[in-house]
């Protein structure tokens, strides 16, 4: 399952399915189970339909028919802005483990 055609061509796996979505959404948009199901169903089908080693099936899904600007900006400068600093990550980590060890779960 890939959204990076050039990397997948270079790696040349036995079977691949491509969806032209921004990185981090290889199997669909958040909270859109119908789209996720459809993409994964297409990917599973490719196990049975790909017969030539190295074939890449291109799926027809479009991220946003009215706005393709993400193709210009994905994975460019600023892409990783907004990532939490290490101290926040560590604090988040401690809190996550505490909640689960208390049996409180993620949303507690």
């Amino acid at each position, binding site marked *: 399952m890939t959204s990076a055609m050039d990397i997948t061509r270079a790696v040349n796996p036995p079977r691949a399915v491509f969806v032209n979505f921004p990185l981090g959404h290889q199997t669909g948009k958040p909270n859109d189970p119908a789209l996720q199901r459809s993409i994964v169903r297409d990917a599973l089908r490719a196990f049975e339909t790909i017969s030539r*080693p190295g074939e890449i099936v291109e799926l027809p899904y479009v991220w946003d028919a009215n706005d393709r600007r993400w193709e210009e900006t994905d994975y460019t400068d600023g892409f990783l802005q907004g990532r939490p600093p290490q101290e926040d990550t560590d604090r988040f980590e401690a809190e996550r483990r505490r909640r689960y060890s208390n049996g409180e779960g993620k949303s507690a």
Partner: protein
Amino acid sequence: MPVDYIPRTRELYRAFKPYQWVMNETAPPWTPLKKPLAQSRVAMMSSGGVLYRDQTRFHREDTSYRLIPKSAVREDLSVWHFGYPTKDAEADPNCVFPLEALRDFEREGVIGELCDSAFTFMGGIYSSRRVRDELAPRIVEELKDRRVEAFYLVPA
């Protein structure tokens, strides 16, 4: 138009030595399905940094992996990865870890059986040699132990 991520990576990380991408020029190995998918045991692995409950999070250059029970629900899952914006995957891990769809397909008979565990790691590993020599052989052993017949990989 597909985005060309190799030149974008070179540009984004221009302060560093250019990354040596894996380039496989020979024909890939080929293992035909032995049975229809509807009779096969299927496993899934994501490199999106998905964690189950209180599992230890990943760190940079981490070639360890986690087993996620196939019964896991969203409340059980969180995401740690430094190399892509994880906001959407945190809101719904199925963006990079489509466990819910695969469970549906098992119930509906599209796949014969979903493996008892899904596999995750954090794909931000600089050394492809370490992925090949450290991570991949251990995953192969896991798959053989579980008699997995089709393996669905989701790089994030």
